[in-house]
């Protein structure tokens, strides 16, 4: 059977562009896996862990929001940010989470943009930390 071509693109750069055996990504309706021969598929991506198997080994990444497209054994993932486990700064992620939690703790009565942003920041930080902890 053929292989998949995985492309992970962020506005800043192309993060991954290589052949892989399988991809598991966090979709809006839950995690989904892609193997060669997958049907044309389109879905949203939520912050979470994205895993892929290159044949030589498994890789894990933290991704934020975006969407994914699968067509003709090509997986294109467009997200705001994507980091490999080895690239994540654990200390920074922890600090970011703390900052965001603090902001949330102050005032939870009004659901304005700041709270939404802080919640999103907490989610992103949690994902990053989880990805690193798994890698260690």
């Amino acid at each position, binding site marked *: 059977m053929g292989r998949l071509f995985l492309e992970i693109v962020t506005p800043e750069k192309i993060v991954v562009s290589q052949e892989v055996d399988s991809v598991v990504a966090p979709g809006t309706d839950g995690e989904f896996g892609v193997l060669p021969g997958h049907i044309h598929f389109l879905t*949203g991506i939520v912050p979470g862990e994205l895993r892929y198997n290159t044949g030589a080994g498994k890789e894990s990444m933290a991704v934020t929001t975006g969407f994914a497209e699968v067509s003709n054994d090509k997986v294109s993932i467009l997200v705001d940010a994507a980091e490999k486990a080895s690239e994540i700064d654990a200390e920074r992620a922890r600090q970011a989470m703390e900052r965001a939690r603090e902001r949330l703790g102050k005032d939870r009565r009004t659901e304005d943009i700041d709270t939404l942003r802080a919640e999103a920041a907490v989610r992103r930080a949690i994902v990053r930390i989880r990805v690193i902890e798994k890698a260690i």
Partner: protein
Amino acid sequence: MATLRDILRKIGAVKKTQQITKAMNMVAAAKLRTTQGRMENFKPYAGKFAEVLGNLASGMDPGIHPLLVKKEEVSRVELLHFTADRGLCGSFNVNTVNAAQKWIKGQQDNGRDCSLTLVGKKGRDFFRKQGANITESHIQIYGMIDISFINQMTRGFITRYLSDEIDEVNMIYTRFISMAKQEPTLVKLIPIEPPQKEAETEEKAAEYLCEPSAEKLLIELLPKHICVQIYNAFLQNEVSEHAARMSAMDNATKNCSDIVENLTLVYNKARQAAITAELMDIVGGAEAITKA
């Protein structure tokens, strides 16, 4: 006629100016390279995004989302306008400000209120002096923008559009065409006019399995589409600014060389005249002595 020393001083001054313009030219060139790299890196994302959105949107009823629906009565429009933070870049700022002013005047002639969101110090200073209605201004943020900043900006526009505070959002930025050509460009952000695709791709769209559903996905992608456009404008504008400054400074350096050349000619002539005058004096003096 200027004395010799005056001319020398002037030559020195022009040479110093030339050094500055040369340095600015090189700085602009370096900055241009990095921003151009960023623009190139963004292209795959933007291209893929437009493709997917085109596939999704083709054949879909525009009524599914308010961002796609044109408002019947448009009385307040918002303009997102990009200028540079700094001058000394030729006609870059003038061109884009003129384009914006022309557009605003056109809107006002149609009885529409115009409010502005400004990026860049030059534009802010200009429109503040004009007493224009400024909603928000962002200065000195080039090079520091990231996608979360754009997301926030986009959310602001969408919220105001949906709450009927504004009826249309447009933007004017300077598109980078080539090193020698940059052009102010007008883009309508909201309501969204999705990129239309050929009939051939429409078939392909039907084959997609969408999760949760094509409509829901499209609704999620629409705000992102605005983000992508704004981000693109940021990058293009920045690249254009550096390109414009580079050529402006290159011209200035060349002009300095011309002036130095001309002044050197004047200096040599003046020196020669002084020598001749002195000789005449000596000869005249000598003749007076022999006669006596």
